[in-house]
């Protein structure tokens, strides 16, 4: 039965450490701001650069910080821009919205 000791110790240690990480994350975890990511998901994600920003991530950051407007995006479709505008409007009024990512 000696052969069972190493896997049990390693497995047990892994479990203890995993649980520790879980509880540390539960206690000290930080809610991150997902706004930029949500806006990026609502953009076409072609990374064409036609808006003048480096890729859709740069454009999303600019939109969130108020430096750009969604209309600057060239390839976005009409119904997509409506969803994006609705999301930004809700963001301004402070009502939490679920991003309808594709």
């Amino acid at each position: 039965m000696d052969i069972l000791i190493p896997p049990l110790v390693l497995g047990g240690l892994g479990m203890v450490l995993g649980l520790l990480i879980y509880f540390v994350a539960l206690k000290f975890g930080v809610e991150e701001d997902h706004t930029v990511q949500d806006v990026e998901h609502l953009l076409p994600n072609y990374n064409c650069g036609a808006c003048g920003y480096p890729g859709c991530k740069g454009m999303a950051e600019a939109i969130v910080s108020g430096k750009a407007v969604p209309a600057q995006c060239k390839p976005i479709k009409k119904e997509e821009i409506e969803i994006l505008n609705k999301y930004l409007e809700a963001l301004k009024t402070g009502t939490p919205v679920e991003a309808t990512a594709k």
Partner: protein
Amino acid sequence: MTNLLTIAFTAFFIENVLLYQFLGICSFIGVGKKRSSSLGMGLAVVVTIILAGMATWAIYRYVMEPLEIGYMKTIVFILVIAALVQMMETIIKKFSPALYKALGIYLPLITTNCAVLGVAITNITRDYSFAEMLVYSAAIPLGYLFVMYIYAIIREKLELNPVPKAFRGVPIAMILAALLAIIFSRFGGLI
């Protein structure tokens, strides 16, 4: 007391982790380009090695040695170090966003830094007591920080000097590391 001083001096100068043991070289060449980033990485390594040294030493002494599974130390230590860095990252993120911004990108690098594992294993193979382990685990990363900072200063100066085309970039950095290693090898005559 003299014993502890000898260990500290030896670990810091003579057996310097970068220039004598050749551990953690990847971060030495990579991060040692700028003073600010070398300082950030160095401080992150100091905290990690001290914590990891204590955790691995305790696990080895009180769990693995009584069960006679010392041969498992490499894999167990890797597991412990990775978990420890992960926890540290979460806690730093919560309590000090500024520190997290400064150290954040270096923390994942440390998980796979061989210097951390090297110190943990050396603590065991040399059969250090708790105090000796603590001194060794503090002196080694401080030596790392010291050498890395000197290296970064010289490399920043080097950027402004005309280096022959064939030596520009990494080659001259390697030659510089070799020269530093030669200088540090002379400390061996002190003890």
